[in-house]
């Protein structure tokens, strides 16, 4: 296969994506949620996920969680690998370690927390960098973009199929459930007033739910053109901000899912001209 001209600026993207991932790991560190900071959790929760079952049968999460020295070594290796990927993007060894490391970190964390989270942006975005050749990277990055579109469109279809969209007051009940303990500590202020207003006005809150569903479904456009990527990015950011403010679902881990919709060519031109001026 003859090497074709690269569509995406892989090196610059690697530095930025792994830099972004490094900041997420710093956030994990600052919030006591790297493996070595979890104080060796004792309960596991593989639930019905076969991948979790396979890893738990072979005691991999248990081994990583239960031995402080092992978990500390794991955290150090993951962080150093991620930093290496920022500065040395043209290699595959440390990229493999980083990708495997974040997936293991995710599975161990979810098993110990007793809930399998859907915040997976930081798991998906580093995968395309396993390809070193330009055309392979381009395909993988586009594949990632389509996969993200597929996930969100799927979420929109689920809301239609399972009746959440058509329900007259679904969002009001979701808000009641998600804020039951939050209101004990936050009874005053603009955020509390807004949530209370939405609970008391199911019709209005349900239209917010429908807007969120339409934001999910809007990613269908992403299958046909990249022209509207900035609007899709905008829809995703607003969707996750809404989740944060109304349902208290943090999206720092998920934020790397925005990466496929960034204008990478324009960023490359900008960085190139900035460096040329220097």
């Amino acid at each position, binding site marked *: *296969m003859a090497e074709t001209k690269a569509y995406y600026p892989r090196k610059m993207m690697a530095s930025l994506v792994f830099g972004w991932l490094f900041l997420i790991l710093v*956030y*994990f560190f*600052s*919030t*006591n949620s790297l493996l070595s900071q*979890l*104080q*060796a*959790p004792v*309960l*596991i929760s*593989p*639930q019905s*996920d*076969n*991948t*979790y*079952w396979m890893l*738990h*049968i072979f005691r991999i999460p*248990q081994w990583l969680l239960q031995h402080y020295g092992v978990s500390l070594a794991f955290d150090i290796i993951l962080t150093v690998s991620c930093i290496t990927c920022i500065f040395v993007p043209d290699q595959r060894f440390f990229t493999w370690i980083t990708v495997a490391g974040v*997936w293991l970190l*995710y599975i161990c*964390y979810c098993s*110990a*927390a*007793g*809930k399998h989270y*859907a915040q*997976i942006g930081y798991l998906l975005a580093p995968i395309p960098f396993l390809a070193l050749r330009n*055309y*392979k990277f381009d*395909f*993988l990055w586009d*594949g990632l973009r*389509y996969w993200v579109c*597929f996930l969100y469109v*799927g*979420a929109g279809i*689920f*809301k239609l199929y*399972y*009746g*959440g969209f*058509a*329900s007259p*007051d679904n969002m009001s*009940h*979701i808000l*009641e*459930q998600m804020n039951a*303990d*939050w209101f*004990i*500590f936050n*009874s005053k202020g603009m955020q509390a007033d807004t949530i209370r207003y939405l609970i008391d006005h199911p019709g209005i809150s349900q239209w917010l739910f429908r807007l969120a569903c339409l934001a999910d479904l809007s990613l269908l456009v992403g299958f046909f053109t990249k022209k509207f990527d900035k609007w899709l990015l905008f829809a995703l950011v607003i969707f996750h901000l809404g989740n944060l403010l109304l349902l*208290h679902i*943090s999206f*720092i881990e998920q934020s790397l899912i925005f990466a496929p919709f960034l204008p990478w060519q324009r960023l490359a031109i900008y960085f190139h001209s900035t460096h040329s001026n220097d």
Partner: protein
Amino acid sequence: MFLKKVYQQWRAFFWAIIIALAAQFFFMAKGIENVPFFIYSMYSYAHQPQDSFNVILVKTQGGYLNPYQLSGRESEMLMNNISYFSKMKKLAYQDYITPTVERRFKNKLPINTYNFVERGLVNNHLQFSKYTGWWKRYLATVYKNPFDSVMVVSAYIQYQPEFSKSPVDSVIFTCYFK
């Protein structure tokens, strides 16, 4: 168009996409999440109205601890597994996953292999007995303030006729620090 290009230029990746799509649709149809085939169906179902909501709180001598002061990851690690522990406590510390493991593997695997599999998937009494000790250590890590003791309790929240918490808390477990 994308798939056509992939098929022409990188056949192995094309088949990987087809297999991944087939697996994704299979797991979506089954409704079972299998990493890395995530199912984004959360909040899709029409939620039914509820009279009250069960909440878990941490009670200190100075009042209830606000888990929303912590980061999302800290409060998830600290609070989410309590309901799991509480559920298991009600089942006399029999892990709810045990019947599933038995159904899948018992009498299908040699006894030694079955025991190995079961020990990997099911929380045993020893793990449950160590749980409160772990929880106390993690609480001390995330809350820098020292406590004499804390009680983990369950309570009910009502929105009608007005927002209120049940006056009586039900104790799940107590931790002593001194």
